[in-house]
């Protein structure tokens, strides 16, 4: 993970997955639909849909969010 300014869009989705149980449930049942209104790039969106935690981390997703989303933690 590079050290630049945090990638807001990826992290705000991770944050919602951690903190918002209803959003997390929608994401679990249909990830692509749950993410429809987000401003993710195609690469970011694909990593979410596949739930590729390492890829999300490489794209700037916060380690602490990735290890703390209930039921989806990534390590």
């Amino acid at each position, binding site marked *: *993970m590079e*050290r*630049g*300014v*945090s990638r*807001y869009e990826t*992290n*705000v989705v991770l*944050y919602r997955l*951690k*903190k918002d*149980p209803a959003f997390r449930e929608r994401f679990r049942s249909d990830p692509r639909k749950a993410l429809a209104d987000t401003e993710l790039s195609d690469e970011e969106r694909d990593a979410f849909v596949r739930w590729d*935690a*390492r890829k999300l*981390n490489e794209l700037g997703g*916060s*380690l*602490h*969010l*990735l*290890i*703390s989303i*209930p039921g989806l*933690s*990534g*390590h």
Partner: protein
Amino acid sequence: MGRIVYAAAMSHVLYPDYYGDNVGPHGRQMVEALIAVVREMGATLAAAAPDALVVIADDHLNVFSFDAIPAFCVRVGRSVNRMVQDDAIEFDRALDGLPERYAVHEDLANSILEKGMQSGFDFAASWSAPLDHAFLSPVSTLYGNRPIPPLVPVWVNCFVSPQPTAQRCYAVGRHLARVVAEGPWTVAVIATGGLSHFPELSLARIGQSDPVFDRRIVKWMEAADHDALAALTAKELHETGSHELLNWLVLLGAVSPARARVRFFGEMGRIDLAALEWSVA
């Protein structure tokens, strides 16, 4: 005139189950040994009977969100709650049995904030942010069943880049020392957070630490080589996984020129654990 009557820094996941689950029996044993030392330190702290306890720690995106991430935030107000979350992860599940509310030392917190604004330290202020394991694991281990003095929680942004520099954290600590010296209170200061872990905040590198780096910085603390510590770069802190050392740098600024005494140092593999005290009294 006020003074700092106790100062220490320590790792802040003081839970045997966490290291038992993630590292195995040797991790569990090492953190149990650390907890025993922190309890001894707590007896010294309680005997110093500070009017206020300043706790410098970081947020793990539990409390602050991407609405805004403060570089430094002082918790003001009358009291502060323990964080409660429905789906707490293992770090924070152990908070469940602890008291729900803690007094804030309003006058000291307000002084740090107001005098900061007057002298070039533009702290954020929070009246409602709760405390997670980074604050309450050390505080509850130090105090056990003894009454906890009014707290002044201070958050440092250790994890959401760009973070404040080591030099700036040290300067915030110098500010803290001035505020204490100008006030009427006896104050204890603790900084929390692990030595190296989670290098580069990379999921792929969980499990790695940097004992060579950790031994070096602990030696610097013993020798009170604060210039070397304050000169650590964001790159060094990131690559070694020493992000939480920023909390310790605030403490170093507050206690300078005191030398550290190592009470515990353990190389676990996943993380290096430590507890240090400074001779300030």
